[in-house]
């Protein structure tokens, strides 16, 4: 019961408390204490009629206590209204302010990600540390430093001004996309699911932002293939995936969201990537259209990784020869997919020694088990 309340209410309670005391640190401790008190009392006294109001009120009282104890924060206390004076029946939803605070471009990118997962997602510091493969102490320091900067530099808890809003929304989306990509397809803390949950929340809070819908569509369309991407811990390329294992509800939802985003005028990188992902869920895949969309994406981003993905689509549309010429023109020699893509194309062209060498280079750069198994098997199949 409390777990569900925690998942559902953590971000709203924390946002209300940051709004109340204007200090992320104090608010977070207060929110945590409020949930801890709830865990002790609710099983005995019963769940209150309005759990959110109960948590916010308790949290406010905790925050005031903390501010009273802490002399350096005493000044802050004088500026606060007394908790009893604020009606809790209508607690404004300040999660959006909290998202913009956590994703403020004045914070280091890795701090934005960590803060967002902590504040909006309710993940614990050890969980975030595990997800990003850094030590708990390192993550703790990162979060502390970010909270200190928020306080000392006066990073505001409010909606950005209208002229700054589009760029600031992009910064939020970039954080959510980063979280999604970090968690896609591996079994640590489920960051992909967390990113989808946060993006859904954002889509509810800013309903007419077509870029938010496009990003959510992109996430759902990719995530729909999750169960098919690995078989027995080995990576399975798209063409060989078991389509029956795809989540067709997610695909349908992703499509519907993409349609809404496109109707609202979305044409940016998230929309284009979502459109590519959508085409790839169809059978047969319209590869020339995928190539055309990669052209658009490449024009938007100028990214050599996009050019590499485009070459993979060219291979499917026109064959491995033209694709290899495109790949060889790229300067991506430190990138494992560059070598695994070359290996695959060389194999199809029958140049086995060169394919073998390319698999070796890809294997040397690979960091995950699933990929290593896939590449090792492929290399062995060359004979």
């Amino acid at each position, binding site marked *: 019961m409390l777990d569900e309340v925690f998942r559902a209410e953590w971000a709203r309670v924390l946002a209300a408390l940051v709004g109340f005391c204007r200090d992320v640190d104090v608010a977070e401790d207060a929110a945590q204490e409020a949930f801890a008190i709830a865990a002790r009392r609710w099983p005995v006294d019963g769940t209150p009629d309005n759990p959110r109001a109960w948590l916010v009120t308790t949290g406010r009282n905790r925050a005031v206590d903390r501010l009273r104890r802490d002399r350096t924060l005493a000044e802050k206390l004088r500026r606060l209204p007394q908790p009893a004076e604020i009606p809790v029946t209508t607690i404004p939803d300040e999660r959006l302010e909290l998202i913009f605070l956590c994703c403020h471009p*004045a914070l280091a990118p890795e701090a934005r990600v960590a803060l967002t997962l902590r504040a909006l997602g309710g993940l614990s510091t050890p969980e975030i540390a595990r997800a990003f493969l850094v030590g708990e102490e390192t993550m703790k320091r990162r979060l502390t430093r970010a909270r200190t900067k928020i306080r000392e530099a*006066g990073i*505001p808890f*409010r909606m*950005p*001004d209208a002229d700054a809003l589009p760029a600031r929304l992009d910064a939020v989306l970039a954080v959510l996309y980063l979280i999604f990509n970090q968690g896609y397809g591996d079994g640590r803390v489920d960051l992909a699911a967390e990113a989808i949950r946060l993006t859904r929340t954002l889509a509810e809070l800013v309903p007419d932002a077509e870029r938010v819908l496009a990003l959510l569509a992109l996430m759902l369309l990719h995530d729909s293939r999750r169960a098919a991407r690995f078989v027995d811990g080995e990576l399975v390329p798209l063409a060989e995936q078991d389509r029956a294992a795809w989540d067709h509800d997610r695909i349908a939802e992703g499509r519907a969201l993409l349609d809404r985003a496109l109707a609202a005028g979305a044409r940016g990188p998230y929309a284009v990537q979502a459109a590519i992902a959508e085409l790839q869920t169809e059978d047969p895949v319209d590869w020339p259209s995928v190539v055309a969309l990669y052209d658009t994406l490449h024009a938007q981003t100028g990214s050599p990784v996009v050019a590499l993905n485009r070459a993979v689509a060219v291979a499917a549309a026109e064959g491995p020869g033209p694709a290899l010429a495109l790949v060889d023109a790229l300067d991506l020699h430190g990138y494992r997919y560059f070598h695994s893509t070359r290996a695959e194309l060389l194999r199809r062209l029958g140049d086995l020694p060169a394919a073998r060498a390319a698999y070796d280079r890809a294997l040397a750069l690979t960091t995950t088990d699933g990929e290593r198994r896939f590449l090792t098997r492929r290399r062995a199949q060359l004979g």
Partner: protein
Amino acid sequence: MRYALLINERPGAYDGLDDGQRAAITAEYLALRDDERVLDGARLASADTATTVRAVEGELLLTDGPFAETKEVFGGFYLVEADDLDAALALAARIPALRMGGSVEVRPVAGT
């Protein structure tokens, strides 16, 4: 809160500008100075005129020039009163040095 907007300029940023262009840039700096949130500010003379003072084993050591050779040199500052960082950043964004390859460091003044 109070913030210092520390302006770093690319050396030679004004080279090749005519008098009219220089005057227009100066007018922009003065207009910022007139904003009611700007409490103070100064433009420094060229870094060539700087003398750096250090204490080495109790002795004062003077060297010609700024404290470090950098791509950008500190050229002046504004001291502003702003509601929060976003408001200070919006003021900083109006500083002409940004258009000429320079940068502005926005730092809160301690204890404000």
